[in-house]
């Protein structure tokens, strides 16, 4: 996010206690959030968490049971999708099969009755934006999955909406193409400056692309934060295990000394951690568990000096990923092994299962939970 936006984060969409019930099923249980103008916002959660329902309500395909959605200062209740300044990229892309690529992209422009030359220029510009320049005359059904996705995007961009809504747009693409599109989408969003709202169940995708992410569980926002804050300071165990891998250890608060909290942690022993690790509104006495990310621990190499915080351990399993090795490591005092990731830098051998070693960690990287 650029500095200007951070200083003056004007909300483009305000969600005020939005709920949605389908019969006896509560799909959304009161969602309150502000989405800022020009940001790349993601709704991340497992299937059935209500993220798509929320997106469809912003688009105007569905109405909240209670609560209000405000878009660019105007309440959206009763306003149909065709009168909202939003455009959607559908999961299935919804490319009109009976139209050419150009007619698909220009579909929404037709209503404006532009002169032919101007219309053609706009369509070609939109196609160029998604690297499909010259594809206009092609029939829509001849396109590949990735190309359809681009056409769907161009069709939304050409409308110059206030907000573009993306409903799992990359889920149908293969891994390579998906990774390429993630970066491309992000770059495109920055260059056009339109607010993007992405719905995804892929935490990695959300982390790569978003300015801010709302993690949703059971029809509610569990945490709304920047990708880094979500990863480093998840406020619940559920968020922590949904985003990346987290090793959980039992912990007991012993006391507070100034800006330090003393904890008795399973397998790690007595430790002082910075008081800043404590989430807002939580007291040190409420701590019952801590979490450590796999890359925040490391296996101490043979002959290296102890950093002060290291413990005896035994490798239970090693999973080799090429650039990384994921070790399942048994710490003394904990039955379940913890996951530790190590970069396979030059000269570092992969340790075999059964080898005894030592694990070091830094108290600053410890996250606390209720």
């Amino acid at each position, binding site marked *: 996010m650029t500095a200007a936006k951070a200083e003056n984060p004007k909300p483009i969409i305000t969600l005020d206690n939005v709920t949605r019930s389908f019969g006896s099923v509560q799909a959304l249980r009161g969602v309150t959030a502000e989405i800022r103008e020009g940001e790349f916002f993601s709704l991340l959660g497992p299937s059935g968490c209500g993220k798509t329902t929320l997106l469809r309500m912003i*688009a105007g395909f569905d109405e909240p049971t209670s609560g209000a959605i405000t878009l660019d200062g105007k309440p959206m209740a009763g306003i149909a*999708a*065709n009168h909202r300044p939003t*455009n959607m990229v559908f*999961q299935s892309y919804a490319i009109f*099969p009976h139209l050419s690529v150009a007619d698909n992209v220009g*579909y929404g422009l037709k209503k404006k009755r532009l002169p032919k030359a101007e219309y053609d220029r706009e369509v070609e510009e939109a196609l160029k934006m998604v690297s499909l320049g010259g594809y206009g005359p092609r029939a829509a059904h001849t396109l590949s999955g990735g190309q359809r996705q681009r056409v769907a995007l161009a*069709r939304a961009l050409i409308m110059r909406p206030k907000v573009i809504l993306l409903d799992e747009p990359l889920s149908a693409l293969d891994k390579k193409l998906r990774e390429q599109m993630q970066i491309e989408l992000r770059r495109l969003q920055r260059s056009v400056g339109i607010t993007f709202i992405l719905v995804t169940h892929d935490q990695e995708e959300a982390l790569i692309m978003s300015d801010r992410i709302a993690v949703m569980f059971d029809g509610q926002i569990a945490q709304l934060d920047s990708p880094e804050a979500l990863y480093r300071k998840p406020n619940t165990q559920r968020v922590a295990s949904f985003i990346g891998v987290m090793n959980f250890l039992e912990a007991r608060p012993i006391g507070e000394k100034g800006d330090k909290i003393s904890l008795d942690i399973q397998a790690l022993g007595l430790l002082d951690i910075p008081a800043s690790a404590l989430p807002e509104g939580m007291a040190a006495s409420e701590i019952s568990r801590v979490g450590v990310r796999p890359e925040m621990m490391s296996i101490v190499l043979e002959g290296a000096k102890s950093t002060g915080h290291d413990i005896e351990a035994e490798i239970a399993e090693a999973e080799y990923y090429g650039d990384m090795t994921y070790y399942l490591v048994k710490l003394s005092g904990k039955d379940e092994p913890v996951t530790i990731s190590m970069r396979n830098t030059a000269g570092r051998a992969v340790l075999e299962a059964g080898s005894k070693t030592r694990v070091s960690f830094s108290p600053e990287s410890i996250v606390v939970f209720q």
Partner: protein
Amino acid sequence: MDVQNEGRKGLLLVSPTFLYAILLLAAPLILVVMFSFWTQDYLDLDTTPTLANYKEAWSEPLYRELMLRSLRISVLVTTVTVLSAFPVAYYVSFRVKERKALWLFLITAPFWTSYLLRVFLWKVILGYNGVFNSALLWTGIIEEPLQFILYNVNAVVITLAHAWAPFAILPIFVALEKIDRSLLEAAEDLGDGPVRRFFRVTLPLAIPGVMAATLIVLIPTVGDFITPRLVGGTEGLMISNMIQVQFGKANNAPLGAALAVSSMFIVGGLSLLIFLASRRVGRVAGE
């Protein structure tokens, strides 16, 4: 050896179907075509090939009039049937959420009685002392029974449109069911109201169904002869009634055959034209 065996086996497997196709489809058609080049000589058939029957079929004003009337009536029937079938199909596809199968089942319910019976029922409804006239008289809307509703073209159109309705509803329904609903949402999302969306997305994508319905209704109704005979009066008679007369009372099967083959080609040509036109419409409508 093996290949030969396999070939023989294939031939054996396909032969029942093949025999069926030859005996029931190709043979009667070939016979009719052959007849059309012969001449009736009282009780005998003169099998010297001649084009005289075709000359008569295409030059006699009566036949031309009957053929044109048949086309006019069946085009009218088709238009009425398809236009009235579309809303029904649309309703079942888009508005009915549960028990679609039951709806389709009920649409086909009239087919449990014979075609002839249904035509007679229309006679009862549309007749001088029929249900329709009685009701209008009773309510005082008219003082004398209406006479223009039976024994003319209107009656033929009403009867045929009713009889063929399910054949038009089903293909249109299938085409509408196949439309990806997210396409409709996309059209709305891009600014279309319900009417624009219908003409730009729903209708062009339903064209294959509409075309199938059109052909399914048009082709057999050109050749229908029961309905015009029973409810059409004299001005409602069609080409098939003449073909029937030629094969029967007039004892001129070759002329009847020539009329039949001619009308077959005309209907074939018309169907081809409709097919080509609908493809164009489908392509242009969405723009």
